[in-house]
């Protein structure tokens, strides 16, 4: 796993950046990718039976299935929204977020103070980058779907940073956090659909 660590970190950070900058399909696919890669990173530390990883992926999967907006899986639209050019344009339109992600990566790679000195550099870098990318939209966004995705990014970053210092979560904490991811996605999806419905009626 360590040889894959750094590429996974880069994919995780890219997915988190797309999750908060894209709209619609691109963002949801990025969130699914982020869930996969950040969980793989988090449980690369100590999870011999892979139960923690499977639990986390299942929890986020259930939440995503419930939260996904309708009509997400239209093949043509998916192909258009996930085209490299579209993704690149999205990133180019949000230079501040991209720069924040890069700065977070660099900041995380440099050990600042104990106990961070004794932590895993790659996980710490991913954690700090995700926090830097996720926190601003979580604090300021007026859009519920975007806030939901920012909450997932922030929570994933928090857990990566924690894992880099303390190691893997204990089983009960892993269950609680898994349930938390599901809860965030379910409640976010439900609130978004209710407000959208009310606004349509108005």
């Amino acid at each position: 796993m360590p040889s894959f660590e750094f590429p996974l970190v880069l994919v995780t950070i890219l997915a988190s950046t797309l999750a908060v900058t894209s709209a619609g399909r691109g963002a949801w696919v990025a969130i699914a990718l982020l869930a996969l890669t950040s969980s793989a990173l988090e449980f690369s530390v100590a999870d011999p039976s892979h139960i923690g990883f499977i639990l986390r992926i299942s929890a986020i999967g259930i939440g995503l299935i419930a939260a996904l907006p309708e009509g997400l899986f239209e093949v043509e639209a998916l192909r258009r929204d996930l085209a490299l050019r579209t993704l690149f344009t999205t990133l180019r339109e949000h230079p501040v977020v991209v720069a924040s992600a890069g700065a977070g990566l660099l900041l995380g790679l440099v050990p600042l103070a104990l106990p961070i000195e004794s932590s895993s550099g790659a996980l710490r870098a991913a954690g700090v980058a995700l926090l830097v990318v996720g926190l601003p939209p979580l604090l300021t966004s007026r859009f519920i779907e975007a806030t939901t995705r920012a909450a997932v990014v922030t929570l994933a970053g928090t857990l990566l940073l924690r894992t880099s210092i303390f190691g893997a979560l204990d089983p009960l904490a892993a269950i609680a956090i898994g349930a938390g991811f599901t809860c965030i996605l379910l409640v976010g999806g439900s609130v978004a659909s209710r407000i959208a419905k009310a606004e349509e009626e108005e």
Partner: protein
Amino acid sequence: MTAEAALTVIRALFPMLTALSSLALLPLIRLWRDRQHDDAATFATFAVQGMLLLTSVGTLLAGAGYVSTLKIGEITIDPSEPGRLLVVLGGIVFAVIVGAGEGRRASVMGQIALFGLAAIDLALAIPSGIAPIALLLFASLAISGAAASGKDDVGRARAVFRDFRTISLLLPAVVIAEILRTAISYAAIDPAYATPASLAAGTALGVSLVVIVAAGVFPFHNRLIRIFEALPIVGSLLVGVWIPSALALIVMSELSALGSSITDPLGGAIVPGILLAGAVTLIFGAISALLHDDIGEIVGFIAVGNAGWLALAAAAALSSPTDTSSRLIVLPGMLSVSLFGLWLVSVRRRYGTTSISELGGWARRTSANGIVLIAAIVALAALPPGAVLAARLNLLLLSGNPLIAVLAILGQVALIAAAVRLLLVGFTPASQAVHEAETRPLVNLITIPLIVGALFTAAAAAGWLALESGGTGPLPPAPSVSPGASFDPAPSAEPSGVPSAEPTPTTTTAPEVTPDVSPSGSGEISPAP
């Protein structure tokens, strides 16, 4: 599984098992009564009230101790006495509130209460790390989402959205506090780092933020008011009062451990800052409660006042770690606000309005509601003076600042005045809404439990029953810093700044309680053999 193991599972997880069984039982009851008698809602409400009372009695019988401790592999669930006490009283309080609320969704609200109490019990039974705090935060979010569902009300959805943002921000705060706490031990052995006192201040700030934000301490009071405005009363009480109080018990234990591990004064102005926030919250909540004319908002501001006491208690836990007054006031506060919630739901159900101007004469028309509000006022004032009042005064003495004490006393008096104002409105000439409302005789299936439940809750809140809620014990020292092969080795020196003594969680249902005795007494959990 042996019979003994099955019994341990039932003891350890009784509230959760009851909540889960409601998922099967209530649909069956609805199906049965809808097919044959068309009174499904009424029967489902009775059933859920029965389950809440069953939770209360079953939890009381199961108790907390090593016979209730469940071990599943590495997972330990060790029911705590504060958690069990909260469920015992919560079962009764919410059964009465669900009964007073009546209506089509009363049984759903009862189910939400069952799950909320189960989450509180489980969280206070988890002895380690961030799991209990995460569980309570996410339970709060799930409850607000569930309580707001079933009605296409944009106001409710927006209140949940606001709550969603807050909850999502609190977990990173806890993790940062955890990281800072770990750094304290390193600072103690390496003078190149920040001082233990300043790192402890950062930890205290991060952990206190959980209570300050979740409970609705000024300037985060707006969340609490919106919750009371938008959510049904069961959801409001759980999300705005019960879960924050359970969080407060965890946080106070953590703050006590932190305070006792630092010999120098804490860095920054953490303790004065929390004290000031608490006193300002009390004054702000009280004045707002006096100025508003909507009884939903007034009850919300009374809850804000209670949050002020929680902040004062958090500061006392930090500055005087061995004093138990801070934990003693948590339970009475939540019971007092619950009584106001009971009164609110009962009056709103009877008269269909929440405006004071339309509620003239309500107490003369429905004397049962009058009794509930008098019980709530007695609970708020903690009369006659006893352990609860002594604990509050002790908190003010511990603050060591006359200004804080004066502000808090003025705030509490103004809160009581706001509640008395509600009662006086009930004796003015009857308004049209009150005059035209249908009332029921004093002796019936809803009114009698309402009065009995209110008197019981007031007795517990005012200190007549002498219930003491202790903490859950501190979060244990942070886990090892070198869990995997990819990590560099941790420093060889043993951390010296981490707390060494673990306060014993106490919950006493003995006849007498002295607020400032050290945590021991009859409620001690026996160690596992």
